[in-house]
């Protein structure tokens, strides 16, 4: 067996065998797991409806009526700074993921479909990049970017997120699995340049894999804390993660800020939850398939 689809739609595979007796144990265990995972989410839904005085006094899961007051208060905080953080997060994650997906697709395509000197070296670099994540290097990255005056700008967060060794690794597998050599050969026979063969023939064939790479990178950047925390000093450039953890720090002296932290946390997870639920079918990632070689 050659290779190795890393991501494959699974719904079609494995049709349910004859309907089997349902097991109460399985149901109870799964519901317990779901309850554990939903607990903080349910809490933040309830807590964001509480006023500052109720937050620490009423029963944990007793809802109140102050959700819109809390949102209005959060919005008024320093002229809507919170919403700026949300926009910043969207810019970092959307821009960073889009560019890194294209960069990864090009590199993965080259590594899967061409033979060239240095291919082995390129692959080992990718592997090293997967095994040693760049965030460990956030401090030296900061020191280097400071030398060229790019710290405390959007670029300080965007540029390092343009490169994703894991994205390249995935794209290499997608290109190998989904783009047949004959199709590329045919495109070349018709006089297409290498770039045209890539952009008009290979990219559309790799599309569903590229959506997965984009989502991976989007979530990684959206969730990243250390890089923007180190790179940015001006709080108007913060993504929502760094902004909210700063707000929590203020809670120590202004307890009213706790309500804003809670409400802000709730609002900040809505976009990603929606993105997840709508794109769930792209999350059928089979990390291990890359390793199965019989």
């Amino acid at each position, binding site marked *: 067996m050659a290779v190795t689809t890393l991501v494959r739609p699974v719904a079609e595979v*494995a049709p349910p065998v004859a309907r089997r007796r349902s097991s109460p144990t399985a149901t109870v265990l799964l519901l317990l797991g779901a309850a554990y995972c939903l607990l903080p989410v349910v809490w933040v839904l309830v807590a964001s409806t509480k006023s500052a005085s109720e937050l620490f006094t009423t029963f944990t899961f007793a809802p109140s009526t102050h959700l819109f007051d809390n949102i209005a208060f959060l919005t008024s905080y320093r002229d809507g700074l919170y919403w700026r953080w949300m926009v910043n997060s969207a810019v970092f994650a959307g821009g960073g993921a889009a560019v890194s997906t294209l960069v990864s697709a090009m590199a993965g395509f080259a590594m899967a479909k061409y033979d060239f000197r240095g291919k082995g070296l390129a692959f080992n670099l990718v592997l090293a990049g997967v095994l040693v994540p760049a965030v460990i290097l956030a401090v030296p990255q900061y020191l280097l970017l400071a030398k060229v005056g790019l710290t405390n700008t959007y670029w300080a967060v965007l540029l390092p997120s343009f490169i994703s060794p894991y994205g390249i690794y995935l794209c290499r597998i997608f290109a190998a699995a989904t783009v047949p050599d004959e199709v590329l050969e045919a495109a070349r026979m018709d006089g297409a340049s290498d770039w045209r063969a890539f952009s008009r023939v290979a990219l559309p064939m790799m599309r569903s894999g590229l959506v997965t790479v984009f989502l991976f990178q989007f979530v990684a950047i959206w969730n990243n804390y250390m890089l923007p925390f180190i790179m940015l000093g001006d709080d108007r450039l913060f993504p929502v993660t760094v902004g909210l953890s700063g707000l929590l720090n203020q809670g120590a002296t202004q307890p009213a800020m706790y309500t804003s932290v*809670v409400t802000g946390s709730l609002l900040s997870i809505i976009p990603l*939850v929606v993105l997840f639920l709508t794109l769930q079918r792209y999350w059928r990632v089979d990390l291990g398939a890359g390793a199965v070689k019989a």
Partner: protein
Amino acid sequence: MRTRSAPYLFLTPALVLFAAFLAAPIVYAGYLSLRRVKVSGLGLGAGARSEVWAGLSNYSRSLTDPEFVPSVLRVGAYGLIVVPGMLGLALVMALLLDAGRTRVGTFTRTAIFLPYAVPAVIASLLWGFLYLPRVSPIVDVLSGVGITAPDALSSSWVLYAVANIAIWGGTGFNMIVLYTALRAIPTELFEAARIDGASDVQIALRIKIPVIGPSLIMTFLFSLIATLQVFAEPMTLRPLSNTISTTWTPLMKVYRDAFVRNDVYSAAATSVVIAAATFVISYGFLKLVGSRAFSQEN
């Protein structure tokens, strides 16, 4: 027909970015880790402070720092809780879903995956509040039956409190990875066993788990790498707890040395040590299990 330069042109953006944001920082960190500031005279005025070679003194200072070893041990203990806890839970949930003997499969799968959409910082904020005795429902429940619950953020519990956040955040993603691998197993592999009367548990242990071994290895590897760089959770919990020091994890120490103490040389040395240790551990693990994951040939 094929242009010989084409693959290099396709690789150029990735190579440039790799050089600038991965290779250069590690080289620069290596350089800085061998340098120090020499102060001449009273250290006043221009030219009184100059950078000189320091040999390995930054490394010996960083490795013998009384706070470094405890932070490494702490992350080791944290990893021993998080990695088996998270993957064990993910595997059990994935097997239960795959056995298909429940009507709540779609709902529970979505619910358990949901925390992946919550950034570590937000997860830490939410759990951080839930840990506060005034908010915690667990404290309410336990005091209802006459037990005084321990403070989750006290020094003896805080490691578990942080580990719980990581387990909560990571179980769903790993479950989906393992579940996808399980769904891809051809049913013929275990139909015969089932007809022979093997139970679901036996099928899971004898057939399913060995078959998805490669997926388990990959999830283990990625969990291990994520554990070594834990930063966001303890940093976020710090305002709620006075038991998390500024050097609670190795990466927190790098941050403190670089930005609080302005000692970039020591921070660089520690960064190099962490990067090297991460590489040795993750690469060593791949070699140890003899995994052909990441093998190059197609």
